[in-house]
């Protein structure tokens, strides 16, 4: 048709200027009349109970308005069910200030409310608690004997337990020609978005609340607040117009929301609560895990048995699981499999989804074990993957809607120069540095959640779209605008996507790399319905050439409707709205996955990462000098924002492998490096050349727009690719992350 598509163009973030000039307002930046400030007091003990609280010195401080603890908190919802949120794992949701019991170190135990933040924080130093301490267990590896299966619940639907065994794993492994047995240890990681968790609650009166919150789900938190405090849904409005990173930590309402709303209702005042950086280590995190893998193959490298056993941390009150054990079988066929996921409840807060939950943990172990297998077989690691390449999903015995992983391997290998690798470990060097090449495979789910979008043409002929989704920093605003612009043949400037507001039509939480497909599909559905309405309305106009014309016979371009048959005949959107007495023409529609059709398929994104490291031969110092990641994720709506997603993930992969860990002191039962100085993430000097390839992958089955999501796939292959490169450089397999350089000399 000769219409320039905006989808597929590297459009810069529409809100970029606002963000970099400080104009974008975050949850802690909304002002209100007589705003009060709450500061959370955190438990210094790990387990036990509060036996006394002395607040006399606090209430004497000028400017302190109230101190809320379990002793004087307002009455709360009685039943556990009312505490729940859309992403709650099976168990009992943690209730801040519920009673005197301390379940974990850093637990909120009081909220001090004052006229300003400084006074409230000062008040926190003047409150005196007496505790009775109890013995605690906070270290995974010391508690392996307490491992048990996870309880099942609502969240199990999205995070199913591993499938039952197939074939006869023990026998097959025992008698296999080639076998590898390995154990992996991962430490705790905290999300640490730069924006601190914060809530500003505006007490509107008449039982109404307007809440600015840091969240990855406005409606999730609206329901949480309304249920918990017995408010009507429509009286609670949660807004999150900008989110300064979240990485999964905003998928569940965090305790500052609860405390802020409680204080606002109790005092009938506007209240803000902001956590400090140390408190950012006092809730969700990626659980530490120990994984035991047993892979076997025949002498030609064909895999015959896959065994993957996981021991992961959870809290003593909820059973958090992330799908970890069975990923290998979605990549490689094997007649004999054994996958098990055990939980070990500890005296910590419940872990939570953190970018590529389960996948990043599992694929490090799986792809390092594959690497080890390749050395045993004396087969090139890439060749071993190709020998075991499966076009279908062996675990589900279903075809993928699309799978361009083979092309990912080949394109990335060529770009990287994999053919220049000399197979022997330690055989490549530059001066004082040993050089290693490593590669690994990535796979991640392609989720789509139901979403509703309201689409309308306003009097000025612009397209306005409404959806409750947040933009968690990935570029949602930009790509939704692109999708909508193409559907109505408009320029980007004529599309206004409005979001981040629970009052707007439904969106689930924004996680799992699902937002593009969820809200994007709903936009397409709504836009199609809107086109029909517009054509019908155009047909109602006097002497209209659009009378009885089907929507399919009309082209939308440049703010006009054109007859496909006769492109000189057109009518503008503005004229149609004028004909409609200036009233916008609108429609609200639901986009949802085609569950019945898709039941016959497996849905996944794939990637391949190739990494070069240098390791100092005397001192062990590791540098990731370059990395290439090829991603197959269906249609890429915006190559610029998508590339940023993959780059960020690749850097996170470097971080996870070489830097990042929250250190638990077993005797104190607390994290000891709870600050960004000592919780190491990479700095510029740690990052070499990174290259991203988007491998062509056309997918007409998966959804209306052929997208699969790119939020997590860039991370999953990197840790194994780096670890394998370190092995290739040094001959040392370090299966405990993060890898410290002193383990390499």
């Amino acid at each position, binding site marked *: 048709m000769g219409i320039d598509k905006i989808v597929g163009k590297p459009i810069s973030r529409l809100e970029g200027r606002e963000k970099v000039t400080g104009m974008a307002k975050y949850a802690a930046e909304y002002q209100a009349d007589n705003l009060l400030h709450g500061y959370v007091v955190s438990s210094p003990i790990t387990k036990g109970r509060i036996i006394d609280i002395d607040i006399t010195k606090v209430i004497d401080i000028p400017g302190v308005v109230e101190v809320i603890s379990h002793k004087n908190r307002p009455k709360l919802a009685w039943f556990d069910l009312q505490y729940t949120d859309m992403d709650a794992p099976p168990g009992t949701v943690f209730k801040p200030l519920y009673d005197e019991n301390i379940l974990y170190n850093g637990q909120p135990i009081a909220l001090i409310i004052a006229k300003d933040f400084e006074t409230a924080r000062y008040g926190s130093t003047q409150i005196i608690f007496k505790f009775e301490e109890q013995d605690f267990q906070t270290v995974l590896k010391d508690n392996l004997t307490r491992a048990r299966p996870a309880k099942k619940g609502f969240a199990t639907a999205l995070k199913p337990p591993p499938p039952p065994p197939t074939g006869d794993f023990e026998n097959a492994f025992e008698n296999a020609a080639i076998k590898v047995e390995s154990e992996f240890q991962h430490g705790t990681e905290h999300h640490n978005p730069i924006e601190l968790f914060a809530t500003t609650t505006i007490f509107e009166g008449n039982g109404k609340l307007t809440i600015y919150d840091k969240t990855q789900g406005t409606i999730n938190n609206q329901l949480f607040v309304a249920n918990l405090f017995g408010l009507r849904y429509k009286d609670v409005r949660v807004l999150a117009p900008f989110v300064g990173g979240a990485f999964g930590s905003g998928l569940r309402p965090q305790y500052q929301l609860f405390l802020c709303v409680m204080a606002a209702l109790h005092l009938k005042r506007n209240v803000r609560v902001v956590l400090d950086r140390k408190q950012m280590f006092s809730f969700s995190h990626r659980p530490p895990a120990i994984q035991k893998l047993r892979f076997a193959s025949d002498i030609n490298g064909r895999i015959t048995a896959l065994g993957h056993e996981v021991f992961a941390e959870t809290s003593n009150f909820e059973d958090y699981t992330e799908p970890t054990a069975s990923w290998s079988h979605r990549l490689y066929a094997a007649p004999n499999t054994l996958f098990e996921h055990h939980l070990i409840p500890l005296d910590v807060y419940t872990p939570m989804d953190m970018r590529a939950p389960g996948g990043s943990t599992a694929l490090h172990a799986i792809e390092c074990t594959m690497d080890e297998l390749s050395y045993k077989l004396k087969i090139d690691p890439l060749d071993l993957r190709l020998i075991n390449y499966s076009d279908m999903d062996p675990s589900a015995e279903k075809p993928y809607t699309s799978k361009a992983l083979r092309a990912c391997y080949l394109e990335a290998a060529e770009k990287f120069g994999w053919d220049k690798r000399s197979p022997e470990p330690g055989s490549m060097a530059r001066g004082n540095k040993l050089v290693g090449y490593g590669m690994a495979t990535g796979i991640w789910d392609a989720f789509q959640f139901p979403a509703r979008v309201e689409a309308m043409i306003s009097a000025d002929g612009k397209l306005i779209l409404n959806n409750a989704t947040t933009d968690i920093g990935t570029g949602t605003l930009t790509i939704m605008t692109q999708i909508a612009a193409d559907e109505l043949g408009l320029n980007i400037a004529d599309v206004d996507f409005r979001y981040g507001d629970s009052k707007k039509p439904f969106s689930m939480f924004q996680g799992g790399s699902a937002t593009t497909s969820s809200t994007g599909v709903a936009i397409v559905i709504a836009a199609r319905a809107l086109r029909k309405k517009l054509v019908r309305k155009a047909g109602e106009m006097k002497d209209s050439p659009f009378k009885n014309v089907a929507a399919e016979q009309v082209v939308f371009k440049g703010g006009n409707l054109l007859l496909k048959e006769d492109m000189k005949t057109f009518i503008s959107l503005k004229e149609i709205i004028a004909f409609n007495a200036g009233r916008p023409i609108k429609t609200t529609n639901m986009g949802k996955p085609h569950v019945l059709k898709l039941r016959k398929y497996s849905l996944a994104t794939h990637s391949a990462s190739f990494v070069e490291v240098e390791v100092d031969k005397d*001192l062990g110092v590791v540098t990731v000098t370059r990395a290439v990641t090829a991603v197959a994720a269906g249609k890429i709506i915006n190559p610029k924002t998508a590339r940023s997603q993959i780059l960020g993930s690749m850097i996170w992969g470097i971080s996870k492998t070489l830097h990042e860990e929250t250190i638990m002191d077993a005797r104190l039962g607390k994290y000891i490096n709870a600050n960004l100085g000592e919780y*190491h993430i990479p700095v510029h000097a*740690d990052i070499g050349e990174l290259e991203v390839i988007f491998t062509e992958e056309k997918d007409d089955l998966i959804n209306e727009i052929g997208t699969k999501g790119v939020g997590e796939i860039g991370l999953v292959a990197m840790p194994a690719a780096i670890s394998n490169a370190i092995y290739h450089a040094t001959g040392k397999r370090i299966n405990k992350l993060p890898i410290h350089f002193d383990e390499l*000399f």
Partner: protein
Amino acid sequence: MRSCRLRMEAAMNSFEYKQAKDIPEALSLARADGTTTFVAGGTNLLDLWKYNITNPSQLIDINHLTELSEIRLLEDGVLMIGAGVRNAETAYHPIVEQNYPLLSRAILAGASPQIRNMATNGGNLLQRTRCYYFYDHEVPCNKRIPGSGCPAMSGYNRMHAILGTSEHCIAVFPSDMCVALAALDAVVNVTGPEGNRSIAFADFHRLPGDTPHLDNNLKEGELITAIKVPEKGFATNYAYLKLRDRHSYAFALVSVATGLALDGNRILEARIALGGVAHKPWRSLSAEAFLKGREANAENFAGAADLILKEAKGFGHNDFKIKLAKKAIIRNGLMALKPESQLPGAQPSA
């Protein structure tokens, strides 16, 4: 049943702030009861204050003291560096770059550009340890509360000391700049209620012993005015190597400053100071004497390393530092023979 109180050193947030216009005024404003803190860059003070580790009730701003703000060569060839000069200005000063490149390199290996632009030389000497347990006011720490115990000794001590430790404290002094100053035999000029005095660099910082709460030998009310660096700057053969868990903006696990005076490949004089291994920059005069007159090669640097590390003792997580320090001393010795082999960020030579 145990019972404990939430430990919070009461930190009344209100404090008195005064700007001093010259040294006499700064000294006269200071209270004698230990509640005064001089502030210049304030980069570490802010951390300590926010974490409730320190709680000065009086701050005396010494940023405007012109007496502290210059770098100049004295007539006897000694370089005088003002205590109030910023770290970045010091590192990029032409005389420092030319005559004392070891000092310049060490400064640039520390912190971040933003912090180096703010932090002063005097403050660098007075920065406190980065021990996790020291910064957490909810847990015991002999440096914070003498007699309360040391959780680092049996806890996570990857960053901790292997030399000069005591049963009370295994914290390390985190500076890079001071490692070079120790190697260069600098002298610290101080002034105070009892007048001026000079302290040899080796005597400035303390080992923890029975008084882990004391980091240095500065007396109450004393102010550092300048650091004097002797003429001999080892500008021909020098190197600084810093080993850490990421390539920038992390404290040293082990760092080494090496200066060599050579006759051909024979060592006339050697200086080796270690950072990240003790409560102060660590030097061994016997190791330096061992190198005197010997060939500058890996074998002899290893011999010196053995002498330096003879008494080294690990505490579990930091056991690796003993082996690492030896390898670092050898590599840095070789790097000093080819100073151009040094990389930005004091990373190991290519």
